[in-house]
């Protein structure tokens, strides 16, 4: 494990090159994560699944086409077998991945916008607004999200439960944790000199927020966005699995709903219920691994820890070699 971690990273980290007088890295480089094996794994997973969701539906057949061969285990012809009514599981998986990514992205954007508003604006204005926003954030944080979503979906009649309804409900119940993180970050940026200078120069508050504060929060926003996407994909899957998702949508959660209600479990049709969940888990893992790298930008201490560890390991290995 130690080797896989240090070897591929060495080339990409911008470690002092042997070339004479290396030019200092451009400033924007500090905003991009360092390529580590974890990041590479994460990006591969995320991009692979996105590609599958975008291109897959064009390559596979009709996901709803019914065959007379039901519950076929995976074979050369149908790679992931068929459902009870003979539908191609792989075709369903491709379409469902697209649906899940779509709602994940939508909710991610909505929740990030909400948390940015409540977190950044409240902390910037300060005073009573900050107190009120932060109380609201903390209240939403402790009220359990999924039960609330279930209650809301229960009251909305099935026919008016569209994609946007579900997306808005999921976003409304999941912005609070990010808002708290953003608030803490904004509080520390707000009191810096250049922000004060900009205020003294008479800039309007939206300009101070967008031009002076927001660029400093970009890595945090990015990491909160990634978290929001994971939470949204998981939340939507849970909701759809219970049959409370957007009507007429095809996501990984609805696939699991049909698998459960088609008795995939008692019939032993693992190829029907295993792939959708595994895909969700892999997407979540990929996004979390990407997030670890973003965290290193937010908190450079973490990066130093990693570099320090690598130096210690290299030194230890060199010492061992000499010893022999």
């Amino acid at each position: 494990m130690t080797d896989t971690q240090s070897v591929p990273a060495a080339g990409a980290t911008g470690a002092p090159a042997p070339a004479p007088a290396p030019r200092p890295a451009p400033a924007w480089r500090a905003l991009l994560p360092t390529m580590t094996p974890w990041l590479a794994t994460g990006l591969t997973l995320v991009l692979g699944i996105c590609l599958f969701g975008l291109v897959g539906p064009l390559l596979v057949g009709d996901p709803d086409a019914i065959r007379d061969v039901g519950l076929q285990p995976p074979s050369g012809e149908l790679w992931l077998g068929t459902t009870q009514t003979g539908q191609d599981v792989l075709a369903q998986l491709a379409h469902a991945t697209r649906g899940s990514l779509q709602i994940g992205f939508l909710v991610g954007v909505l929740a990030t916008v909400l948390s940015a508003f409540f977190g950044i604006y409240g902390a910037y204005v300060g005073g009573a607004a900050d107190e009120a926003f932060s109380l609201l954030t903390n209240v939403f944080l402790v009220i359990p999200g999924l039960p609330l979503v279930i209650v809301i979906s229960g009251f909305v009649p099935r026919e008016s439960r569209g994609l946007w309804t579900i997306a808005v409900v999921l976003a409304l119940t999941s912005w609070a944790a990010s808002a708290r993180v953003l608030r803490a970050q904004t509080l520390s940026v707000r009191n810096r000199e250049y922000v004060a200078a900009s205020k003294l120069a008479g800039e309007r508050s939206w300009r101070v927020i967008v031009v002076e504060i927001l660029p400093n929060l970009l890595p945090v926003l990015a990491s909160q966005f990634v978290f929001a996407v994971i939470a949204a994909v998981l939340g939507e899957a849970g909701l759809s699995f219970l049959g409370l998702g957007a009507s007429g949508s095809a996501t990984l959660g609805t696939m699991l709903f049909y698998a459960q209600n088609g008795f995939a479990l008692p019939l032993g049709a693992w190829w029907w219920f295993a792939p959708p969940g595994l895909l969700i888990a892999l997407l979540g893992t990929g996004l979390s691994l990407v997030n670890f790298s973003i965290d290193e930008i937010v908190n450079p201490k973490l990066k130093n820890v990693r570099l320090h560890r690598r130096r210690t390991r290299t030194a230890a290995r060199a010492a061992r070699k000499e010893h022999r």
Partner: protein
Amino acid sequence: MNYLLRKLGFYAVAFWAALTLNFVIPRLLPGDPVDILLAKLSQRGAVVTPETRKAYATLLGGDTDASLPSQYVTYLANIFKGDLGTSISYFPAPVTEVIGASMPWTMALIGIATVIAALLGVLLGALVGWKPGTWLDSMVPATTLLAAVPYFWLSLVLVYVLSRVLNLFPAQGGYDVVLDPGWNTEFIGSALYYGFLPALTIVLASIGGWLLGMRNMMVSTLSEDYVLTARAKGLPARWVLRDYAARNAVLPSVAGFAISLAFVVSGSVVTEQVFSYPGIGSRLLAAVTNNDYALMQGVFLFITLAVLGANLVVDLLYGLIDPRTRAR
């Protein structure tokens, strides 16, 4: 004392917010819950009097006689009297009775599973963080995968492997149905046996978060000066790990308990559905499918109340273990 009052005040506000949400949601959303509910009620053979109608209208909206503020006051008064209406899916049992029968199951399941997951996760996280860069670090991607697995899918897989293929545990229910519920060893043993798989699901799915959080805090605590001092003094590694590093690193995990618990509660609602566990999550879903709005609202209120209570207890404990919070 000030800390205690502030915390109590916050949770009172949070509970009031939940009550208000409960009041507002059915009134804001489309649909006519009172009519659906009364239609179902009369199907079950109940006599629908104007009083019944009025009682449900206070709970769910649609009352045209009273103004909104006065509806709100009546609603709050009814809640504090403990009157949450009659359940239609368990007619004629009142909502509070249905909740009272299912709440202990969920509280025991989530309580035991969360305590096990938190203790194990923090312990393992401390060990993994203590020796960064060793083989133990390979647990990080593995736990990341575990943390991203949907609860209900994990329970499907566990049922498939442990119950269907290996036939070790029952796949459904909370206890052996031939037994009568009661406080005897036979029944408790059966409940533990049936509860093992749901609990295992929750532990496996939630341990990753604890482990990762603890590990990351451990890694940054190890670079603190006081850890270096402790090592320089020549203290045994075990003491440094336990009394210097882990003790300080665990604080954010405890402080973040609210977020973790919210995740666990959300996950276990769906998990209960997979196992047909007789807990409150299954009741909530049954209520949703049967349009049993009164039960739905009651369950939501009780879940919120339980979560708020657990968070309050942890917050008070946190005040004890971290003196800085009290000093502020």
